[in-house]
């Protein structure tokens, strides 16, 4: 595995990590504001996380 491939893979993981981390953070804030909406927020968070992870994996497999 050459260096550019490894660097690219690292960048992809950083991107996905930042994206999902921000979603998780906003989800936590939202749950803290309104604890009774926990179910809906969790659902929305999982959907967004899966979409981001989908792009991440697609890029990872293309590289």
């Amino acid at each position: 595995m050459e260096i550019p491939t490894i660097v690219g893979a690292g960048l992809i993981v950083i991107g996905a990590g930042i994206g999902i981390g921000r979603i998780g953070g906003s989800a936590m804030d939202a749950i803290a504001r309104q604890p009774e909406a926990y179910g809906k927020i969790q659902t929305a968070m999982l959907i967004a996380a899966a979409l981001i992870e989908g792009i991440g994996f697609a890029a990872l497999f293309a590289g």
Partner: protein
Amino acid sequence: MQSKFLLKFLTITLLVFSLNLNAQHDTHDSSIEKVDLKAKIKADIDHHIQDSHDFTFTYDKENNKYWGFSLPIILWDNGLHLFSSSKFHHGESVAENNGNYYKLYHNKIYKTDAEGSISLDDHQHPTNSKPLDFSITKNVFMIMVTSVLMLLLFGGLARSFGKGPIATGPGRFFEPIVVYIRDDIARPNIGEAKYKRYMPYLLTVFFFVWFLNLFGLTPLGVNVTGNIAITFALAIITFLITQFSGNKNYWKHIFWMPGVPVPMKIILAPIELLGVFIKPFALMIRLYANIMAGHIVLMSIIGLIFIFKNWIGGGLTFFLAFFLTLIELLVAALQAYIFTMLSALYFGFAVEEHEHDEAH
């Protein structure tokens, strides 16, 4: 009383899923080089991930012992050829059937002559002709097993409602999940009026993907949803259902988005058209990559146990593999849920009624 049952259930579940962390083949030979061990681990991982024409649970290549059973091979090569994959002897010999000779090369069947010669071109690809392969491979066999399992479970569940309002039988574990799919996935996304038409497909795809993901985590060495052809088929079905159930609103939203100025409409049309194809494509890639990557990482870490030949390294790696298996269990259910949710979302887009007269 309830917590005792829960404890027993959890223990049995976790034991079953940690059984695939057992040693599979002998590495007692003290003169094995690290490079050789890594090559062996790679070969084992490849064997787990790829489809194969026979169902081998485990094997010992040095002593030529294989535990498993062989599956039928069905070829169309100007005539139907039907024989058992045991004729291939795990890729070593040439199978002969009705005067034609076939040989396995990298898990694919090629037509060859009596000696089994495979001619390779510059890129190391074989140039022999390939017959049309309709064999029952490991993946096809597992799909059939899963279908029968689902028929039994859910047929039993449906029939048990005839006796009374409470479900009985082993399928009753899935009733809350079915209700969840109906109330939280289908109804909100597709709408009250039309969700019933799509419920059969959504239920089927959810449990199909979930059960096959779970089968992939067992020690059997199957990897159905981690195969891009399978996820391609599932994504194509979702794609076809959305296109065929699209109403006038749907096509209008793609090609001539209402509520935006005309230059924007012209710019949006190709982008939306691309989106029509990219959404199922992402469905396919998401499921494939999640499951495949999970399998590869898990088996690499198990292979790491063989590279660390001491108690501390092996012990810590075992716990890492154990926790990774737990995460993979979550991913199995989550990916099934995501696939179903996004399919329901796309169906909802396709059948959306005219509810926005003002700005879009």
